[in-house]
Structures are given as C-alpha cells and as structure tokens.
C-alpha cells in the first residue's frame, strides 16, 4: 500500500491569507493512504524541501504530494528534491492551491479552504496510482540551421559556428544582409549601417563552419528535436556561381529594366543582377520572369549559329561574361535543387517587411513625393537611387520642407493594432541626418505619442528637438497633392485643439513593420504558430522569449515581433546560446510523460494521426496491418490521442485513465 506524504505550503501569505492551512492539513491527514501531512511557510525553500527529503529517507513516505503554487514553475524543483532523497521523481504530484485557489478566491476564505481540500484530495487520489517512470535520452546531431540571413540570423549563425558547430544559414534573397543592409545610418549612435554590417556579412560568408545557402527556402522539416531533417530548395540562379566573380559585366550588358527591390522600387535593376554592391556572396542571378531573352537565347537552348560567320549568336550577358559563368545553354530548371540537411536545432530569424504606402489612399500614395521611411532611407544612402544626394523623387529638387507621419498602419485598428516600436526612433534619426546636413530644412514630425524608451534614446530625442525639428502631436488626416509637386498635410494639432495644415515638398510615411511574407507557412512547416498579428509566438514572453513550444526550434529578431537592431541582435545571441545547449550536451532528455500505443489494441483507424498537433504519430505497417506509431522525441504529451482513441489503445504516461478517474472521483465526492 502506498504511503503518501502531503506537504502544504503557506507561500507566505499568498496561500495562507485565504486558505486555512491547518484545516487543510488535518483534512489531508485522514485521507486514505496518507501517511503524513505537514505544512510549512515556504515549501520550495531549502528547509521546506528538507522536510520532504527527511520523510522519504526515514521510510515514512513513498509518494509525495505538494500543495502549493503552479507546477509550471515549481514541479522541476520538487521532482529534483524527491529524486535526491532516493525516490523516483515521477512519484510526485502537485496541487495548485495558489494560482487556482487562494489568488482566485481571495475574498472567500471558507470557499478557498474547501476548494484546497478538494484539490489536495484529488492530488492524493492520483498519487496512489503513480508509477515510477524513467527519462530517456536521444543523441543530438551537432549542427544547426538558421533561417533568415538578416542581422539577427547572421549573429545567431556566427555564435554557433564560433562554438564549433556546423551551421547552415538559409536566405531567400541572393545575398545575406536583410533589411539592415538597406539602412543608411542606425540609431542611437548614427553608425553607418553598411560600415558595421559589411564586416559581419563577410565573416559569415567566409566562416569555415557556416554553409551559406542563399536564394534558398526551407521546403520541409521532418524529424524532431536533436535530429531534424530539413529539405531546402535552392532556387536556380542560371549563373554558375563557382565561376562567377561578381564583376558585374553581365549586369551592365543587360538591357531589361525592372523596379529595384533593394532601392524600394525607386530605380531600376537589370534582369541579371547582383542584389546590392556589398552583397555576400557577390554573385549574379538571372530573374527569368523579366529576362528579355535577347537574341532569342531562351534558357536551356543551344545558341543559333550565325549564317555568315558560323559563330554562335550569344545574348549580351553571355558575351560580356569573361569566365563562362553566364551560359544560357544551362538547363531551364524552375524547380531548383533540393538540399537535405541534418541538424539538431533550428533558429528562425526571418525578419520583417515594411508596409507599402499604397493602402493609405488618404495620404496620396500616387504622388512620388510621398515616400515610406524605408524609401527615404534609400534616398539618404550612398548606394541608393540618388547616390546619397538628398532629392525628392518628382524633380530631383532638394526638399525644403519635410513632414513625417508616424503610426502609418501601426496602432490603427484598420491595419495593425500593435506599435511597430522602431518608427519614432527612425523618424528622429532620418530627420536628424537631414537637419545636420542641411540645417535650413524645415522638418515636422506628426506623432500620436513619441515612444523613445531605450538606452540613450530619450537623449537622442531631446537632441533632435534642440536641433529645431518640430514635433506636432496629432493624427494626420490627409495629404493632398498641390500644384508644383508640393503636398498639403492636414492634421489635427491636439495641443492647439485645432486643425492644422502644412505645405511640404516631401512627405515621409512611417509605415508599419509586418511579418515577413510566408512566415505563417514556414511556421506550419516547423510546427510553431503565429500570434494574431502574424509574428511567431514564443513559449513564454518573459521567461522563455526565444524558445517555442516545439523543442529545438528557437526564434529571434523581428520574426518574433517588431524590434530595433540592438534588441534583435541580443535576442539572436540569446537564441544561439539556447540552441547551443542541446548541441553541447550531446543528448536530450525525453520526458516519459508521453503517449504510448498498445499495439495489440490498436485498430489502425488513424484518428490519432490526424489529431496530433505535433505530427508525432504515423501509421506504420506491421505484419500487413496498419498500426499507430508515436515518435517519442516529437510527442509533447498533450494527450489528445489518448482521449480520442476509440479503442482505448493509447496511454498517456503520467495521466493514465486510472489516475484521471481517481482525480475526478475525489473532486466529485
């Protein structure tokens, strides 16, 4: 017969303030199979744990119930204490009489006490049916995958590679660098973005432990924590990268003109192009969708032969290429190449995109002089469409008056309810860069709230105000086009309590940060979910900010939510450290609180396979019949399969039918 010890925690006043602990203790003492019931001020403290250990060592108890706070934070501590005293750690059960009782029923002491009794009785009833279980271990593949080659992804990759692990960095664009590569300067120190980012990109490109897979996307993810099997689709570049030197001769020869994504559509690139001057790898790709097939040189065909000279007729890009990297006889292959990777952990750093101006019809998006802040960033950048000359798009004139509009698409229930977090600072930064270079420029920032929380940020804001940048509190209602390519900004000045109008040469919209396109689909492949705003959800906002509910998958940077560069880098380095723990340990613990199929009872109906949210269940053929098979490493122990199995063939260890029934009976009695 089990000898159950019940230990009731006062949690200072947290529990004892609402629950009559002594009454509960007396009640517990007389429950069947309870050998001992004790109470203590703080059960999780050293002396509290010692009480439990002594009773186990003295042979008084062989099952432990602690009635205290939440198992989410405290179960591991008590399990360890139980194990230290020589008992199997799964012979332990917790009753949550704080979060789910004393806190919830603080003003009903009698009710709280009665509920505590029920909860304790229920835990005791379950404890009688507890079985000893053993942890298992799985070997870990000592390699990691980082998805997204922006600043967060690069730091995550460098950290892991620096620890000696093989890292695969997948980036969907031809070059790494991400959005940060587009920025001119970065707040709060106004470092030149390219100057601080390029060395990092080069380090990533040359690190012997980092395998760069650019122009590639994650196709599928299988396997589980410690041993993921990832398929990556490498898009066809139609340029032989082994031969390409990045000289750009083919680019200069190409006659096609397509809006340049890197310059936010403000100038044109060619159909064969290198993404930007500092690209890593600095290689060309052919954008077949916009290729003009000069000289009828469609990809994958042999060149026609000139009737007089007898020489092959080549496209200009081919003729320009000195190394033979550009060869249009190369097979047409839109499917690209599938590369299979084996990794132990995965970090997702897919970043963000900025909203386009088109949805904001009230702000005259058809005017070339209404630009997004990212477009202004390119206008200010030396590698941008104006080569760093400060010009407005319509007529290349230097703007004399500039209006910034904040919260465009952010904090707006029509678009995104969240604050994009970086806009206040980047508006101030862009305004300051302009004002410092051209002090005669009149700059207005229309804001709802100035949010400059962060180290050195408020000082930055005050510095900008002292420079003479004018801050106006009030929402901008509309922007009209005026003759002479000018714009009229109409706003409501909350401080004046009146509508105001401003004529400007350039209007800058601080458009919202949005999740990168395809993030939800990538999330589905990985088994992690997006929140209502579309960013990836972390396991716990405060305590597990880079972990996800799928073990072995970590997130960092703007894939998790809007954030600035310092924060994205900190988070990336946190994620790399979290992802390195299992790689370093070399094996991972698989908790035994998972489901198991009784193969003799299983009818192979497949109900469980469809329901499993972790894709842990597969139907496997066994002696000509289908049987449900659970991948122990993938199973998260949610119990959906056990509850749904029509044959009762699935047992969820730690939550068996006998244990649950006993709990319910105790609660209902």
């Amino acid at each position: 017969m089990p000898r159950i010890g019940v230990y009731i925690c006062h949690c200072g006043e947290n529990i004892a303030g609402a629950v009559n602990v002594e009454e509960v203790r007396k009640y517990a003492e007389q429950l069947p199979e309870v050998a001992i019931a004790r109470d203590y001020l703080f059960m999780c403290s050293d002396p509290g744990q010692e009480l439990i250990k002594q009773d186990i060592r003295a042979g008084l108890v062989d099952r432990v119930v602690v009635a205290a706070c939440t198992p989410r934070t405290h179960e591991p501590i008590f399990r360890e204490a139980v194990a230290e005293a020589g008992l199997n750690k799964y012979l332990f059960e917790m009753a949550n009489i704080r979060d789910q009782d004393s806190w919830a029923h603080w003003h009903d002491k009698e009710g709280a006490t009665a509920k505590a009794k029920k909860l304790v009785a229920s835990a005791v009833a379950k404890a009688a049916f507890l079985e000893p279980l053993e942890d298992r271990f799985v070997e870990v593949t000592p390699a990691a995958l980082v998805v997204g080659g922006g600043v967060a992804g690069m730091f995550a990759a460098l950290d892991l590679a620096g620890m000696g692990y093989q890292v695969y960095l997948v980036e969907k664009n031809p070059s790494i660098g991400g959005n940060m590569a587009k920025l001119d300067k970065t707040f709060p120190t106004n470092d030149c973005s390219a100057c601080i980012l390029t060395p990092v990109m080069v380090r990533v490109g040359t690190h012997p432990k980092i395998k760069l897979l650019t122009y590639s996307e994650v196709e599928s993810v299988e396997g589980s924590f410690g041993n993921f099997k990832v398929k990556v689709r490498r898009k066809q570049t139609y340029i032989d990268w082994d031969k390409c030197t990045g000289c750009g001769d083919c680019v200069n020869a190409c006659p096609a003109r397509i809006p340049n994504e890197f310059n936010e559509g403000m100038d044109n690139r060619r159909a064969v192009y290198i993404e930007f001057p500092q690209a890593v790898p600095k290689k060309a790709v052919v954008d077949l969708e916009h290729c003009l097939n000069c000289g009828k040189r469609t990809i994958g065909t042999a060149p026609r032969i000139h009737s007089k000279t007898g020489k092959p007729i080549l496209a200009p890009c081919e003729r320009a290429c000195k190394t033979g990297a550009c060869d249009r006889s190369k097979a047409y292959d839109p499917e690209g190449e599938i590369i299979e990777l084996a990794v132990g952990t995965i970090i997702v750093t897919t970043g963000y995109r900025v909203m386009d101006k088109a949805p904001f019809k009230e702000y005259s998006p058809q005017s070339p002089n209404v630009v997004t802040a990212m477009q202004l960033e390119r206008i200010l950048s030396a590698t941008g469409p104006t080569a760093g000359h400060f010009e407005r798009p319509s007529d290349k004139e230097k703007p004399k008056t500039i209006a910034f509009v904040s919260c465009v698409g952010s904090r707006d229930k029509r678009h995104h309810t969240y604050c994009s977090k970086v806009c206040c600072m980047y508006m101030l930064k862009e305004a300051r860069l302009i004002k410092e270079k051209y002090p005669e420029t009149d700059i207005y920032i229309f804001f709802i709230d100035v949010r400059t929380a962060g180290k050195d940020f408020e000082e930055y804001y005050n510095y900008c105000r002292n420079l003479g940048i004018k801050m106006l509190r009030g929402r901008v209602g509309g922007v009209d086009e005026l003759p002479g390519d000018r714009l009229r900004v109409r706003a409501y000045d909350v401080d004046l309590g009146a509508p105001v109008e401003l004529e400007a040469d350039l209007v800058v919209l601080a458009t919202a940060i949005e999740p990168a396109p395809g993030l939800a689909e990538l999330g589905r492949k990985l088994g992690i979910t997006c929140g209502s705003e579309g960013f990836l959800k972390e396991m716990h906002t405060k305590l597990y900010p880079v972990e996800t509910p799928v073990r072995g998958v970590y997130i960092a940077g703007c894939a998790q939510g809007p954030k600035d560069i310092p924060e994205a880098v900190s988070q990336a380095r946190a994620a790399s450290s979290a992802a390195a723990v299992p790689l370093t340990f070399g094996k991972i613990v698989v908790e035994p609180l998972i489901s198991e199929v009784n193969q003799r009872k299983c009818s192979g109906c497949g109900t469980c396979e469809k329901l499993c949210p972790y894709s842990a269940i597969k139907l496997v053929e066994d002696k000509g019949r289908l049987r449900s098979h659970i991948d122990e490493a993938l199973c998260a122990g949610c119990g959906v399969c056990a509850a749904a199995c029509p044959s009762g063939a699935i047992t969820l260890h730690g939550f068996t039918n006998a244990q649950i029934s006993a709990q319910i009976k105790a609660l209902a009695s």
Partner: protein
Amino acid sequence: MKIGFFVGCNTAFNRPDLEQAVRYALPALGVELDNLDGQSCCPSWGTLPSVDVAGWCAVGARNLALAEEKGLDIVTVCGSCYGSLAEAKYKLDHDPELKTRVNELLRNIGREYKGTSQVRLAHYYLDHELGPDRIREALKYKLDGFTIALQPGCHSLWPSKVYFDKEEDTFHPRVLKEMCEALGATVGYYTRLLDCCGMGAMRSADMEKSFHLVEKKLVSMKEEVNPDLLVTGCSSCLLQFDTAQKFLQKDKKIKFEIPVLHYMQLLALCLGADPEQVAGLAETNVRSFIDRVRKE
C-alpha cells in the same frame, strides 16, 4: 426602367427647382419615376441617427419598405438621404438582431423590411445603369468649352462599405467627373475637392466655422480651376454653396461668385428643360451661365 424617387426635405422644401429637374431629366432619359407615396423624413443626421439607432433604422426601413413593396430601387439627389438610408440598410442587413427589432416596430403599421431594394444616388444610378454615352446622345445643349469644378459631397463617398454603387478609390472619385464630362464640360481638379462644405450640423451650430470651410473650398477652386460653374452631387452641398457666397461677399471674404447647380439641374438644362423650372431658385447667378450655354 423605373425607380422610386426619394425627394428628401431639402429638395422638396428648399429647392423644389431641383425636384423639377429630376422629374424632367430622368423621364427624358427613359427612367420612369414612382413617387413612393407616403415617404417621410429619411431620417436625417442630427435627428434620430444621433440618439436612437433602432428608431433611425425603423424610419429608414419604412421608407425602404415602400420601395420594396413595388420592387423598385430608391433614387435620391440628397447626400444626407443617401447616407442615412444606405447606412440604415447596411445596419439592418448586417445585424439580424436589429432587423428583428425594427421589423417588430414596423409590424405595428403593417409593414416589413426585407432588404430587397437598393439605395442609389441619382448620378451614380445614371452612370451605372445608362452610362455616359447614352446621356451624351440625348443632349440638346453641350458644355464644350466650359470648365466645371466639382463638389461630390462626403456622404456620396463615405463610409464606402455601406453603398451599393462604389467608387474604385474614394479619395479620387470618378463618377461625378465622368458624368460632367459626358455633358461636354472640362472638369478641373482642385486640392480641396474632398473637403467638407460645412453644411449640416456645423451650419446649424457654428455659422462662422461653417462659412470658413466653404470659403476655403471656394478660394481653392477659384485659384486652381477658375470654373464657370460649380456642380454638386448633393442637395445639401447645393444649398450651402448657393447661399453662403453672398454672406462671404458681404464680409469681404471673397470677391467673386461661382454659380452653383446640382448635377441633375445641369443635366436637365442640357436636355432642354426650362431654366426657370429647374434652376429658378438659385441665389447665385446661374442665369448668365445658362444664357452662355444656350448661345453657344
């Protein structure tokens, strides 16, 4: 083609010449009018819509039911009627609880709202059902060489989701412009096109502010378009622009006058209507504009 003509109080009591214009122009284009006997207040903004949503929708639904019983769409020339009726209809069609409550009220008078009739603004109806070409063919007088400035009216545009006839881009409205161009006129863009004219509650509550808005609009269109005529799509805008100018002139706020007509008045004139009948109550000098048109 037959429609239920919802006259609206501004038109019936303040500008019956506009009512005459509708009664001339639509039949001339082959659209038969039903008087929707028993039609009441729409009810207008500032009355029931401000204080009692169910009451508003019940009065609106009663008007709509009159058209439904005859299987007709409602056509009006007033932005307020258009907005109030369309918004009430939108609410009723999207809120089953409200619809039930309103139909309980209507049962007392033996009527029921079903949601089968649409609410249309006259020039949108003409644009979508006849098209500019049919109108062009029917004209007796053309406006070639005349420049027009527009006042579409806010209720014809927003909230766009409640309207059956939609603009592709409400910030760049197309329909009134194309309907004026169909008459042969040149339509000029001015930057305060979408501004409020100051009519409605503001005109009742704060005349000075209201006139300040209409002044800004008039100055903008004078400077940027210098039109021969201002054309409104809404009877309330018509009243505001037609009556405010003499006050502004007296206060020396403006030194010019722009004649003002509702689109349906202009259309009736171009179709050959008697100016006294369809524009006789204008306070601005539309007569000289009409004479010029007839002389050309």
